[in-house]
């Protein structure tokens, strides 16, 4: 049974409990993974006019599943945002990534993006250079820290002209210990905020 609240004057809850935890209670619940958030913050970077962004302390040895948020990607010149992974500290930049996405433009054009051999996984759609030309995305990353499994993604992203959903993979059994974001079409500098969370496990 999920545990609830501490202290007084807490919101109504369906399941009653005493509402106050002893130090022992806290330690025990924490060890069981029943205290605290089930989405745990790992890192955040806000960048302006950079060519790329790396997140290299992703706690892949702690979390099986990560959630990456990219907010307000805005390139200096027209471009789109791609992602590569670091494997044991070395960035994989070869055309080994695979992905499949459905896209839809607000003006009516729909289609498929897919590849069995590209040098990135797509994160944010193509954007122009106006300050309002931004895009955002959420991306789940699975199995990063498991050296015997591939690292998968599923994501949804949208910008000023279109939306896209789907997923990808780095089809190599390896430990992924970092994320690299870059302009994957023209290599333009960009601004954005990136936040990384671990999806909690016991």
């Amino acid at each position, binding site marked *: *049974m*999920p545990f*609830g*609240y*501490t202290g007084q004057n807490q*919101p*109504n*809850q*369906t*399941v009653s409990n005493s509402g106050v935890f002893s130090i022992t209670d806290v330690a025990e619940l924490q060890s069981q*993974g*029943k205290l*605290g*958030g*089930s*989405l745990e913050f790992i890192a955040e970077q806000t960048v302006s006019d950079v060519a790329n962004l790396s997140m290299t302390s992703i706690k892949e040895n702690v979390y*099986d*599943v990560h959630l990456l948020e990219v907010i307000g990607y805005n390139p200096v010149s027209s471009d789109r945002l791609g992602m590569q992974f670091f494997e044991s500290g070395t960035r994989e930049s070869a055309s080994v990534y*695979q*992905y*499949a*996405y*459905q896209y839809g433009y607000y003006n009516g054009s729909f289609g*498929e993006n*897919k*590849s*069995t051999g590209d040098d990135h996984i797509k994160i944010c759609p193509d954007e122009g250079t106006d300050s309002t030309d931004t895009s955002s995305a959420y991306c*789940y*990353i*699975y*199995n990063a820290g*498991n050296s015997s*499994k*591939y690292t*998968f*993604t*599923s994501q*949804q992203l949208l910008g000023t002209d279109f939306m896209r*959903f*789907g*997923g*990808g*993979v780095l*089809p190599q*059994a390896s430990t992924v210990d970092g994320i690299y974001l870059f302009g994957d079409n023209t290599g333009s500098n960009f601004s954005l905020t990136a936040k990384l969370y671990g*999806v*909690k*496990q*016991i």
Partner: protein
Amino acid sequence: MSNLRLINETEITSSVSSVDITDVFSADFDIYKIVTNGIEDTTDTPSLHIRFINSSGSVISASNYDYAYLNMRSEGSFAENRGTNQSYIRGVFSFSNATHSQGSVTYIFNPYLATSYTFGLSQFSSYATAVRSIKNIGVLKQTASMTGFQLFDIDNTDFSEGIIRTYGLRVDS
């Protein structure tokens, strides 16, 4: 205190063709999030679907499920798939993933409400000979209380590892 609460974590450690996750849906939550990763087998290629388990502990296999999903293939044309009055919701956690596993996020709505159907939204990526990404919607058209769910392969293909985590999305009144 976070409104996303871990309820259950189940790790698959031996070869099985189905896993029952019981007593995870209750009156505490209306919306649940199921996160899976790493489900695979060394020799078989499981495709994993969902059925619900009612408050009597029975797996619902009646022909009361509808689903629709978009199979986004990196190596070929995308395909739509749909079914009505089926005995399970197809394509929720993986398709034919052999030794290279998968990852998925699924939201389940209203499972415990006996006056409502049980709905699901799912997205996953898995690898057979190339990556496939699926977006899926599904429903169990029974006004009955569900307390759990079953992952299974309709062809009884085994899977031998992986993790299934169930979270509740808390609403404070």
